[in-house]
């Protein structure tokens, strides 16, 4: 058995820490309006920076999920640091569920 404490693990090289903290746009998605995101997925397709991610919320053993069933999938804004507020997702959303705000620093 190898002693893990003696192994030299590479260090992380994260983003430029001198720039932090930074102000990121706040993206809210109304999940009451957006019920079938993987069936619609217009925001995923239109975003040039891939800010959104869609995942299966109710993962069940031994069963496939149906993307047309409401509430199974959920879309969330993950990479907000990449968003440059082009508002394409806001214009494209058929349910008007997305709002983007940028607070003053």
């Amino acid at each position: 058995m190898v002693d893990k404490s003696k192994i030299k693990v590479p260090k992380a090289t994260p983003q430029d820490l001198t720039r932090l903290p930074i102000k990121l746009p706040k993206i809210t998605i109304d999940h009451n309006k957006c019920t079938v995101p993987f069936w619609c997925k217009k925001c995923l397709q239109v975003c040039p920076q891939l800010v959104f991610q869609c995942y299966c919320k109710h993962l069940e053993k031994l069963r496939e999920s149906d993307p047309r069933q409401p509430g199974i999938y959920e879309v969330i804004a993950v990479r907000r640091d990449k968003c440059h507020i082009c508002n394409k997702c806001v214009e494209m959303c058929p349910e008007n569920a997305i709002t983007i705000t940028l607070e003053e620093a």
Partner: protein
Amino acid sequence: MCHYCDMWGDGTIWYLNPKNYARHMYTLPKEAKPGATKAVGEADPAGYINLERAMVDALERGPEEYEKAIKFARDMVDMTQGSVGGWMGQVVPLRDAERMAEISNPLGLIACICRKAMLGIEERCPENMTCMGLGVGMLKWERWPERYKGGVHWLSIEETKQWLRDLDTKGFVHSLMMFGPRFIGGICNCDYPACDALTMRLDHGFNMLKGHHVAMVDYDLCNGCGICVQRCQFGALKMNVTLDKANIDQMRCFGCGLCETACPRKAISLKERSKIPSLQEVW
């Protein structure tokens, strides 16, 4: 030699050691403890996304909080995947990916889950069948059918190599994936913004180790055609306008070998990282 070679290599590169492909996966499912929502290691549908979201949220709160979020993510990955230091993948060049296909069995292709999540590509789309599964984990499909929804495309060794070469021609970076301690379970073929693992590495600095090679340009052979420049996913390859030749920043090079396979004049070659003193510790 990376730290996984030290631990699990047995004197060779760790992903060429057949021991790292063997694991008994057909254990009986563990009973959940009373009160616990999920057993450790069980798939949490939003687990990985929440780690990424926590890191992005920490950018707003300052450098200390950001480093704390990264440390938490590394610890979580270590706990659930059995990795060390949060590194659960490594970039491999095409030739090593082909050798990996010779070691493990069975081999199959499934739909890429990153591209499904980021771009909304359906599982049944044939262009999305790029996630190459190695080993007995591929037989686990009936337990989580959601992950294997588009079906499994089973491959022989020769077919796997052909698929890898085709994906390489398209311009996808190959990287191995760990699923649990000392178990290599797949080859990811993806590109920068769509692949969650590559994005985590390039934006937040963890999750994916650099490969065991770095690319070098032979200036006598390079004629500056620029075919390789569009292949680099890591921002290491630029056109040196003054000389009209390709130029590789070796501190940024991940050793994926896409530039090598694209070069029509064989001007780019892969050198071993361990033979270059200044790059030995750059992972």
